[in-house]
């Protein structure tokens, strides 16, 4: 092929502008998701967000998949999630750079995951945890802004709060949790009166205002700009429709079935079987609180960071084991400490299963929820916090793509928090502090 690169050609090369309006797809993942939800129930189904925390990390070489992408493998300690693999994402190689701040054992890691900030003092949260930020976005209209529970029964077992050193306390008793949700003050959502949200109404009026200006511009534009203006106003109209749906009385919540009475009281204990039972009771209550739209945000703490879980007949704690039990370099893990990890992964899978068992139209409650699960260390013996184990379950009404193992290649852990905030509508383009600041969401799991 002859290719003349004379100066003239260069100039002609530059002068090849052809006026084409660049088409932008009218439909995006967000609307698509809602569109489907609308088709199913006739009204918008609320999206929910929650966290599920476990303490003391994993055995890295027996938990993290090796193959990034959709077709990821399940090493022995991740095996319990198999039935829900397609609805779960696993995250590996996301790091927690502390910029010289101390790695406070069992504290710095979890706090960094939730706030994007390295702790410098021993207690509380240095900034707002992102579950609270998401709650401010999606949880303002339900009875509880958030329900925070601890299966191990410890009120201080929490990673949620507005910062300044405070923590939202966790509810440790299933009976008290029942009373809180379904006791005095509970109103059957299907018989409650409907008040449109004043903030949504205000947003709606802003858009009407924008629409009114159309005529003035329309009169003065040429054909090319006219197309752009049409697309702009189509977008305005779509956003108006979206808000109109939110201003309309919702359809009855078909999945809402109020439990008959409180569960039997359990004696609080760190014994793993008791904690599993308490977790089950609390999960069932939480699931109904979500189905009955009493809350749209929750925090479930399975155990605590320096886990006080024990086994029947032994008082040696999970935490003690991670430190005391020697790492056999041939085996590559600690068998006794690992027993607890296996049970924890079973509990996590049962939590996901409980959400998935509730039908909401053509989807399940899990499909309309994003649950973010994480620990506070990678490998507890050495308090390592890089390569923090994390997962998400559920697609948040079509906002999150699932079934991926994402390899973070050493990027900061805050990318997960940023992605989830953005997916749930928080207007944020960068999040985290110092080396943990990021503006790069995880493209693989953003639905679209």
């Amino acid at each position: 092929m002859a290719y003349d690169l004379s100066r003239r050609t260069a100039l002609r090369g530059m002068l090849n502008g052809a006026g084409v309006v660049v088409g932008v797809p009218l439909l995006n993942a967000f609307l698509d998701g809602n569109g489907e939800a609308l088709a199913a129930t006739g009204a918008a189904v609320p999206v929910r967000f929650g966290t599920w925390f476990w303490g003391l990390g994993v055995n890295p070489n027996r938990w993290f998949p090796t193959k990034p992408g959709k077709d990821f493998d399940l090493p022995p300690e991740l095996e319990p999630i198999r039935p829900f693999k397609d609805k779960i994402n696993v995250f590996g190689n996301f790091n927690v750079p502390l910029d010289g701040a101390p790695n406070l054992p069992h504290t710095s890691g979890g706090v960094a995951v939730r706030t994007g900030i390295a702790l410098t003092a021993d207690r509380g949260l240095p900034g707002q945890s992102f579950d609270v930020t998401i709650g401010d976005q999606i949880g303002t209209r339900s009875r509880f802004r958030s329900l925070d529970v601890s299966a191990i029964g410890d009120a201080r077992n929490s990673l949620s709060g507005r910062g300044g050193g405070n923590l939202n306390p966790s509810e440790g008793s299933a009976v008290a949790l029942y009373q809180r949700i379904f006791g005095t003050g509970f109103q059957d959502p299907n018989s409650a009166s409907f008040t449109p949200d004043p903030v949504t109404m205000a947003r709606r009026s802003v858009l009407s205002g924008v629409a009114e200006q159309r005529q003035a511009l329309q009169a003065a534009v040429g054909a090319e700009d006219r197309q752009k203006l049409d697309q702009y106003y189509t977008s305005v109209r779509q956003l108006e429709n979206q808000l109109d749906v939110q201003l309309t009385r919702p359809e009855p919540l078909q999945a809402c079935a109020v439990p008959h009475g409180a569960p039997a009281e359990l004696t609080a204990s760190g014994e793993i079987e008791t904690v599993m039972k308490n977790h089950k009771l609390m999960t069932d209550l939480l699931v109904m609180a979500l189905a009955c739209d009493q809350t749209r945000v929750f925090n479930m703490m399975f155990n605590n960071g320096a886990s006080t879980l024990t086994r029947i007949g032994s008082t040696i704690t999970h935490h003690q084991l991670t430190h005391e039990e020697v790492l056999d370099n041939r085996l590559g893990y600690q068998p006794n400490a690992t027993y607890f990890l296996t049970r924890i992964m079973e509990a996590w899978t049962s939590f996901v299963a409980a959400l998935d068992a509730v039908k909401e139209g053509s989807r399940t409650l899990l499909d309309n929820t994003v649950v973010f699960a994480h620990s506070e260390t990678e490998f507890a013996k050495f308090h390592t916090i890089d390569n923090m184990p994390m997962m998400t379950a559920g697609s948040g009404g079509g906002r999150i793509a699932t079934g991926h193992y994402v390899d973070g290649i050493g990027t900061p852990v805050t990318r997960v928090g940023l992605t989830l905030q953005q997916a749930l509508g928080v207007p944020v383009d960068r999040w985290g502090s110092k080396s943990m600041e990021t503006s790069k969401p995880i493209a693989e799991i953003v639905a679209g």
Partner: protein
Amino acid sequence: MKRSAKLAAALALLALPAAMAFAPVGPAAGADTAAAPAPAQAGQIVAMRRLTEAQYRNSIADIFGPDIRVSGRFEPIVRPVHEMIASGARRASISPTGLENFDAMARVIAAQVFDAQHRALFAPCAPADAKTADDRCAAQVLAPLGRYLFRRPLTLDEQAFYVRMAGAAAGKAGSFDKGLELALSAMLVSPNFLYVIERAEPDPANPGQLRLDNGTRATRLAMMLWNSAPNEALLKAAAEGRLTDQKQLEAAAAAMVSSPRFEQGLRAFFADMLLFEKFDELAKDPVVYPYFNQDVAQALPEQTLRTITDHLLTRNGDYRQLFTTSHTFMTRALGPVYQVPVHRAKGWEPYEFGPRDDRAGLIGQAGFLSLYSHSGRSSPTLRGRAIREVLMCQPVPNPPGNVNFTAVQDVHNKAMPTARIRLTAHNTDPVCAGCHKITDPVGLSLERFDGIGAWRASENDAPIDAGGMMDGVKFEGGAGLGKALSESPDTPICVASRALEYAVGKPPEDEALVERLVGDFAGSGYAIRALFLKVATMPETWRVTAPVLDNATHVSFAAPATMAGRTGR
């Protein structure tokens, strides 16, 4: 109308230097008349250019102060093939997601502007009752803000509309400030803010032709040279009709390119010309390139921009020497990639390469070298193509669809240890050879830099031959290529043509105009300030051909998305 101290101070910072105190030609007008009846908008719209993310952010910071947080995601503007994002902006529409994001950002900004900490800075009056509407006071707050946001005085209708909106909301919310907040949100999602709307008027010098009007000129100067909204001085000059006067236009533009704020404008221009959006997607195989990490990725575009502004502005250098300069800047993150010492633990420090480093200007930097490489290997073809297309504005055809790349991709084949050998094997296919002849001899001169721009003397233990050739001229290594580029007539033509495209929002169609511009550029010793000053003041760039007016009165909305959504899956 009295503006608050803070707003005045903020605007004083933006005010043009004293040199730009041109004589008024019309009746004195300015901020004080903002609420007065505005001139009728007879102007025909000849272009609507969507604000870029940087222009949006800079506008908000300039108008409301840098402490007002802008947080949200911006719908990216699509770059048309071989063109600039500035041209894409002229064609960019706003999708539903894009609008939703703009709406969310608007609410966050408006809430901050009228919060307890800031409201006094923007509200020069107090309402009769803080719990209810006060139209007079609302007008005093909203008219000046609207003028900065829309880059022209609000029309009477617009002003009345926003005052009405604030009043209605104040009544409902029981708060005068909440009303203002809502009206400001509405302005921030208006197409009058989100688009730079360019309007034309009859050109007295060319009967029957149009020229851009004063308001449009103020905005174009501000966006082109400072990448932000026009400041008080420009809006005032526009209101007084001074920007259609050639002498005064030249004085205004000259002051702007001499201002420190021109650096912000120049950075935006080069980020556009050099395709910096590609840095967002830059990723390397960590096993092949352990030195590449997030800190490195973030530092690369900044190193290039610092080199550019240092050479072109601080040193007032010849544009062509951007391809030969040995001066650059280092930071701790980049030190290991270049294997050079970095003194400061934080921030940037000047660095000068030695002659044996073979790092010539922009093409010797890890930014360029890694951007135009694959994730696990260097690419003489990508580098050669980028030099042709990005730096010389010479489009190279795309490869045909059915090419067998096996030979070039297998970097571990001991029989073909270097890229030169692999490409030679690949190019036995005559279908490929035609284009590779254009790109590869250029890119092969940079083969001593690997896929992240780190130095290497050999590949697979075979010594690297860094001989290169461009348009018949043979040379050696990066230094040779840099010299060839600096001597090529196409590099200054390319940047001049891009500057023109950047200003107007579409690639130049008038060859003679580009030639004249390049002539002047050469006359200035290839000084970038002179180039931008020329582009900003050439009467040709302010002339427009009248578009066909679309006078349809009936407007039909597209089907609502929710309905479309049902059939979408």
